[in-house]
């Protein structure tokens, strides 16, 4: 017989040490959620203390030199851009997802996914550049004149279009995941009752997927709200409450990105920017949490 060495004790010790170390790393990295939230809260406390929470959020006056830090124009711009982007993106994504899952052949799928992957991997700054060289001139020279308005092209609409393209991979993949979890038997049951394919989709598949579709949209909204550079480059960055989609806007992330360098010289400016980061963080956290919990529960419910 062969003799085996005995280093058991040290191997077990290494194993246990690794466990505690891994636990520590896991706990620290997961607690970043809290650390970021608390850090931002501490930094934004001065502005909340001196101007009040709701006054800062709901005031439209943004004059840092006069110590007026109303975030409303930025919030409104963010909402405009995000919602418009979703309005453009969601129907197209939903139709495409249905097509891919219910109708398309394997060959089409194998062609489609790598292309979506490329879009998902494109850095937002590149989409921003594309927006500057294609979308902005298009709006300035064709779309705005067509509606009889004058626009520089740098507008809410340009931001929404670029953003809607960025959202496509996210939204489409959630939709596809939802449609895939609908059991095949359900479709077969409906088809065998004499329903056409489209009727099955309309009355059975979509109906079952509605909560998931909503979760996907909320997730898209949270992505949209936080997207910075691509939107910043085409949206115009004018502090105002935009009145039409051809007007420039100034979303919250752009505010932070554009002003961070110079903020230290003006009192309370940095606190105001941190407060906007906190608002952004809170909004995204909320949307994310809601849609994740919603989605997880739904997938479980559909599976069993």
């Amino acid at each position, binding site marked *: 017989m*062969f003799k*085996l060495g005995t*280093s*058991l004790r040290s191997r077990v010790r290494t194993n246990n040490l690794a466990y505690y170390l891994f636990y520590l790393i896991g706990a620290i990295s997961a607690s970043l959620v809290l650390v970021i939230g608390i850090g931002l809260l501490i930094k934004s406390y001065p502005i909340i203390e001196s101007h009040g929470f709701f006054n800062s959020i709901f005031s439209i006056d943004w004059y840092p030199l006069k110590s007026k830090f109303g975030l409303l124009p930025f919030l409104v711009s963010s909402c405009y851009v995000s919602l418009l982007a979703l309005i453009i993106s969601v129907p197209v994504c939903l139709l495409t997802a249905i097509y891919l899952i219910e109708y398309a052949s394997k060959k089409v799928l194998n062609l489609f996914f790598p292309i979506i992957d490329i879009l998902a991997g494109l850095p937002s700054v590149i989409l921003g550049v594309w927006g500057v060289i294609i979308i902005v001139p298009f709006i300035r020279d064709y779309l705005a004149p067509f509606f009889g308005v004058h626009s520089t092209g740098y507008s809410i609409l340009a931001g929404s279009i670029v953003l809607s393209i960025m959202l496509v991979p996210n939204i489409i993949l959630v939709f596809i995941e939802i449609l895939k979890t609908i059991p095949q038997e359900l479709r077969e049951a409906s088809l065998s009752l004499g329903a056409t394919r489209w009727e099955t989709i309309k009355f059975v598949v979509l109906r079952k997927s509605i909560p998931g579709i909503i979760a996907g949209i909320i997730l898209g909204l949270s992505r949209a709200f936080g997207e910075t550079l691509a939107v910043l480059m085409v949206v115009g960055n004018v502090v105002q409450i935009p009145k039409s989609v051809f007007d420039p806007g100034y979303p919250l992330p752009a505010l932070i990105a554009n002003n961070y360098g110079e903020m230290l010289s003006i009192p309370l400016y940095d606190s105001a920017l941190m407060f906007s980061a906190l608002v952004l963080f809170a909004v995204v956290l909320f949307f994310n949490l809601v849609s994740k919990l919603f989605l997880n529960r739904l997938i479980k419910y559909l599976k069993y």
Partner: protein
Amino acid sequence: MESNIKVRNLNVFYGATQALKNINLDIPNKQITAIIGPSGCGKTTLLKCLNRLIESTDEVNVTGQVYVDGEDIYSPKTEVTHLRKKMGLLSQKPYPLPMSIFDNVAYGPRLHGTTKKNELKSIVEFYLKEANLWDEVKDRLSSPASKLSIGQQQRLCLARGLAVQPLVILGDEPTSALDPQSSAYIEQMFLKLKADYSIILVTHILRQAKRIADYIVYMYDGEIIEHGEASDVLNHPKHPKTIEYVSGVIS
């Protein structure tokens, strides 16, 4: 009857349901013990208690004692890694490790401190021969284990298990995924191996138990209904449930 494995008052709960009810059992040394019974009766659960793999199941609670070599394996002092080295496992489906044939067999010895190339070579050859696989794989030891047929994979798993020099071989329906030819191979090997190892075999094939078992444990609904010498239990079952099972009324 000599026994190095003694189970005392063993109870297992999965959440609220009780999977094993007050099990008391001595496993005879160097014999083939077959645990039989209808599916869901707790055979596999009992087997998993013997090497504490049961602990990786969700929401499980184990009470009672299992003594291996006089040491309670559920006492906090017992090192589970050490225990598992003693209890070789052959699972339902072969799970070769994601590495070459050679590395599969050398995996255990390497972990336990054998690193010399020559030594490993002779260990691998020895155990592959022991598992009746050497002639089929000796020319392709460095090819991935996943390339082998299922039957070959199961024999590889056996060689791999033997190479860490266990005291006991636990077989969890080890032939259920195999073709008849490979199953026969495994059965023959068990008959050969019982000279050196105690073998505990969970099986749902009554004929398999009849062919190779020396000792039979019949379980039903988490309880041991009857246990004893194979000839006694199979030919003269006492309990009505055992009679039903052995005669094929229930399966």
